[in-house]
């Protein structure tokens, strides 16, 4: 009797890789948060002396959340979040602008990949603390060193992930494109890049999360006239012994990361409906924006079907 109930419970709740409904998934997540909060509350229950964990180690939930308005108003939480986001966004965008074209080229042409591989190797294994120090030497105090820190820390990963995504596109798509008359450039722009794009996007989305962590490391190094940022704030709280504020920031950061990640996920869904389903609003938008460009090319280069080169005289994709 008892065992059958347990069996059934196990069977229903822990079926291997059985998908969960969205509602249940959110519910389970909320349950986890509530459980942690309860644990926290129990550990810090009562007067300072009678608590299981002392207030110097862990303030109670009430004490912590009580400081929120102070964090929000006196310590300008939103401004600091925005300052941090701005730094990481500029640095990471730079890494994308530089890294993706290089990565795609390396993925398309093994010779380029072989040539660049030492640099990629160094870039991927460079110690972050050393980069940070160097950036401060080179760019001095201020915004530049932080932006460049994010750029240097992530660009090698962007390059190698983009290259890998291109190399992972099956060769049969290249064969197909060639036998349909695509040139090499057309095969790259119409086949390889679009087929690799969802993978590249996912990889970059994950990397952005990492970069968000790196930036706070950069911000916590104080030199001369520092200006704001979450990492800087944490540093100040630490020096002043504001435990509640530090705990609050630890809770705020994942929330900010979650919001950013959800925005990126939304963009991803709308950009790649062939992978994630849906209407692909952004995909349509990109197509519409490209129409004039395409029309211009048609005007300039249109070859008529009848004027196709005779068999085997064309040199094939160059």
């Amino acid at each position, binding site marked *: 009797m008892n065992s059958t109930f347990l069996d059934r419970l196990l069977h229903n709740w822990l079926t291997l890789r059985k998908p969960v409904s969205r509602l249940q998934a959110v519910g389970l997540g909320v349950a986890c948060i509530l459980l942690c909060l309860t644990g926290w509350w129990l550990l810090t229950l009562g007067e300072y002396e009678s608590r299981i964990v002392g207030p110097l180690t862990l303030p109670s939930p009430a004490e912590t959340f009580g400081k929120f308005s102070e964090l929000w108003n006196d310590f300008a939480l939103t401004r600091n979040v925005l300052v941090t986001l701005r730094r990481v966004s500029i640095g990471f965008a730079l890494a994308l602008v530089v890294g993706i074209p290089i990565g795609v080229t390396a993925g398309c042409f093994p010779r380029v990949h072989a040539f660049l591989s030492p640099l990629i190797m160094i870039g991927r294994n460079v110690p972050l603390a050393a980069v940070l120090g160097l950036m401060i030497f080179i760019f001095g105090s201020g915004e530049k060193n932080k932006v460049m820190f994010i750029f240097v820390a992530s660009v090698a990963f962007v390059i190698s992930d983009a290259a890998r995504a291109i190399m992972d596109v099956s060769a049969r*798509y290249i064969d197909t494109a060639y*036998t*349909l008359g695509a040139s090499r450039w057309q095969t790259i722009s119409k086949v390889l890049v679009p087929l690799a794009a969802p993978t590249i996007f996912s990889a970059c989305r994950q990397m952005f999360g990492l970069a968000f962590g790196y930036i706070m490391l950069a911000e916590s190094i104080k030199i001369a006239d520092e200006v704001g940022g979450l990492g800087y704030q944490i540093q100040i709280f630490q020096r002043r012994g504001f435990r509640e504020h530090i705990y609050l920031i630890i809770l705020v950061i994942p929330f900010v990361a979650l919001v950013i990640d959800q925005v990126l996920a939304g963009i991803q869904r709308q950009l790649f409906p*062939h992978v994630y389903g849906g209407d692909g609003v952004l995909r349509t938008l990109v197509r519409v924006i490209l129409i004039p460009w395409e029309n211009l090319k*048609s005007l300039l280069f249109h070859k008529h079907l009848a004027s*196709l080169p*005779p068999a085997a005289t064309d040199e094939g*994709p160059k």
Partner: protein
Amino acid sequence: MSQPPAAANANETTGSLASGAASAPRSSIATVITGGLTPPRSPVGLRPHVVEFRNVTKTYNSGKSDQFTAIRDVTFVVEDVADKGEFVCVLGPSGCGKSTILRLIAGLEPQHPATNGDVLILGQSVVGPGSDRGMVFQDYTSFDHRTVLENVTFGLECLHMPRKQRDELGREWIQKMGLNVTTDADKFPHELSGGMRQRVAIARTLILKPRIILMDEPFGALDPLTRLNMQDLLVKLWKEVQATVFFITHSIEEAVFLGDRVYLMSNSPGTILEELKIEPATSSANEMQRQPKFLEAVYYIRDKITKLESNQ
């Protein structure tokens, strides 16, 4: 397996058919033309051959420890029949080099270039792939990020044909392939069945009106009924586009139904053992493939393959 009918056995015994089409057995629709390797005569003052292989050998990883000769000394000619391409089917055991031959014609690496010999298309050496030799692959190669319409018009887009014009042509071909223009045109490949995907693959090749169409077991993954439908469709469209078709298959029935000519290949290193001429199909695949005459030809080829294999 059922016994081949008596008539087919009779063919087998009067089997010195190698003398040519004149001695075609009345009862069968298959006729042996050549018994193996006859060097082709070069056309004098005639139109060049559509496809010509001259002693073509392909050795993979040549010079390395794992080198492997997939085809050896393959020689054949597909003549340019005025206003009508020929439908050539290639039959042979797995791994005998059928795909190798097809990809040599297409000019695709690593098969291209041949280790030895000449691969000529309309008298000229193959330099690389091109849309004059369209190819339909066995595995699904629809571009996943493009809708059906965008897949079908891919080649036209590469020619920079204006969008309106190419979409119109694309819809026309979607219709011709038996797909629904209103409901299917905007679907992505992952929303299609295997049969529908192959229809898309065929449409995007035929829309470019290639001189030569290369098909590598295009219906291999389809269920028998879909397969018959696709065979009918292919015959109909082929008459319309008038191209020379190279069609690889493992199904003797498919080869006899579709082919004007069937090449039988030996085990590796592959060579073409025999070339058979087949009478054109007169009715639909489903009907045709029950006729005694048809079955006779199928059994005839099956026996032939068995015999060729045991002779090796």
